[in-house]
């Protein structure tokens, strides 16, 4: 049972990171659907840099950096050249998918799995004292550094969005562009910041996906960027909601994985579980009556 519960958080982490990134763009009114691609790009570069430098810090930095770069580029396309953000986002996904495999075949001369056993490991952290609490200890403790960071990031995002002027301005921009402009807030810059932040968090998501596995495989995000978008909207545009949505999705996936192994059912039907549970959750939860489709 502990293992089951313990498996939920790591399953949530990449999705949560990416969803936090998506959240900023959602609130700014320019939803970035390129999270999938940003994660993938960051996953590749973090592995590459980890391989070059054997330094996890640089690896994470590289992952974040490249993903922010692409996100800002997407912002430039959408804000300056007024390209459609949805199409640009699809472009980001396509680009990352192609470009990483291209680089992988150039740099590692394989288009397939890039796996290094000798990379520095992200260790699992037992929180002192906490891990000794009976029952609760094993659930609260014993995750990877990035897992803790993700939860910390959710808290940080909540603070940024609801306690700082920046957060107020950003949400205002998303709520009513004209009104924000009228209050002297720059719509352009806030949207660009939001996209940069989506790059930052999606980048972290990519690192959380690749670094603990010391592996890069082309297309290894497998739709997690899209799930992150679901979490953004399911979470009602709030970091806490996004956290809960990601957690639900993580738990549903864990359940699906768990049941798959021995259920006498078509595995394909088992795989619908995470989506089914998320959908049911959406139907059951109280949806505020604010309009907008």
């Amino acid at each position, binding site marked *: 049972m502990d293992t089951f519960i313990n498996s939920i958080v790591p399953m949530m982490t990449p999705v949560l990171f990416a969803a936090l990134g998506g959240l900023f763009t959602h609130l700014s009114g320019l939803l970035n659907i390129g999270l999938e691609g940003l994660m993938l790009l960051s996953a590749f570069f973090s592995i590459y840099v980890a391989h070059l430098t054997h330094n996890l810090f640089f690896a994470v930095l590289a992952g974040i950096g490249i993903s922010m770069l692409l996100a800002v580029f997407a912002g430039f396309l959408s804000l300056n050249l007024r*390209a459609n*953000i*949805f199409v*640009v986002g699809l472009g980001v996904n396509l680009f990352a998918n192609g470009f990483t495999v291209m680089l992988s075949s150039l740099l590692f001369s394989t288009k397939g799995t890039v796996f290094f056993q000798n990379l520095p490991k992200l260790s699992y952290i037992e929180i002192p004292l906490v891990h000794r609490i009976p029952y609760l200890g094993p659930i609260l403790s014993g995750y990877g550094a990035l897992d803790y960071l993700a939860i910390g990031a959710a808290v940080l995002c909540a603070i940024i969005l609801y306690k700082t002027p920046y957060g107020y301005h950003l949400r205002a921009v998303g709520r009513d562009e004209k009104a924000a402009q009228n209050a002297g807030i720059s719509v352009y810059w806030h949207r660009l910041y939001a996209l940069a932040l989506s790059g930052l968090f999606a980048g972290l998501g990519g690192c959380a996906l690749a670094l603990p596995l010391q592996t890069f495989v082309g297309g290894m995000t497998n739709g997690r960027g899209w799930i992150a978008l679901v979490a953004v*909207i399911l979470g009602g545009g709030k970091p806490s909601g996004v956290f809960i949505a990601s957690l639900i999705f993580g738990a549903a996936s864990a359940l699906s994985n768990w049941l798959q192994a021995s259920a006498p059912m*078509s595995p394909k039907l088992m795989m619908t579980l995470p989506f089914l549970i998320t959908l049911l959750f*959406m139907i059951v939860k109280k*949806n505020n009556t604010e309009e907008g489709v």
Partner: protein
Amino acid sequence: MVTLRDLWRTAFIVGAALGFGLCVILLASERPGDAIYAFFLGPFSNAYFFGNLLASAIPLILTGAAACVSFSASVFNLGLEGQVYLGSFLGVFLTCRFGELPPLVVYPLVFAIVFCCSGTLAALSGYLKRARNVNVLISTLLISYITIYVVDALIETVFIDPTAGLAATPYIHDKFLFARLLPPSDLHSGLFLALALTIILRIIMKKSALGFEITLTGKSPVFARYAGVSVSKVLTLSLFISGGFAGIAGITDIYGIHGRMFRGFSSGYGWNGIAVALIAKNHPLWVIPAALFFAYLENGANVGALLADITPEMARTIQATIFFTVTADALFSLIRKNKGGDAWTPSSTVSSL
């Protein structure tokens, strides 16, 4: 008015995008000249490739039109993929069931049932929106995922052709296959169906009361309600039509090319349909050139692989650079400056998600 600056900007963007695409080719290809030729001109180099290009535009025209309808009502139907999938599966299943009947009886029957079933799948999200205020974007997406897995499970278990060697349904009878227009290429008479449906859609959107209600609701649901439109009904209906078109896209492709349904059948028809609709700025007729453009990019990649050494990942990278710029305002300034407000702004829809 188009200023010189606009022209420069346009030239710069297109140049930058193509330049990057060329860099990719130069970097990764051993015979860049051949690769460039094959990618960009290959699809037009002979009737076979050109026929294939047109053939692969057919489902995109239909899914593009499908996306248009829902976007016009400002609902984001992200479940096209699942609706295509369900439509194709049902279509094949029914065609096998009615195998005894002549095609002219089966077609209308199958098209009607497929339209209704795929449409209902999409309209379900409209119902959930109305009953429980569930976000349509998410519910369509989730329902689509679920549909795909369930249909996969059906293909893998109950409706599988054991001799196929892969998860696929049995073939439908040859008499049901659409006529080929340009053999041996894939181009089939479904093209006319797609064009006709798109034009019908355009007429509905432009001339009918329903089309008016859909656009009105899309632009301002509050005003639409005030004006007496039943907003939730219109949303559900637009989803229904959208899903129906997606289903038709799937079964048309099967009648035209594959003759059976198999796992992984709709490789991105739904998603690409969305992109097509966005490039077409939500205008049903612009969907046709946008879909052709998309098909051109895909076939360029394919011809590039056949005649030169373009790999799928190179193709994706090049396609992405084109994606980045196709919707850039500057490119459309020539067309749109004169047309006033018909343009659909991305932020208004995306932010209302």
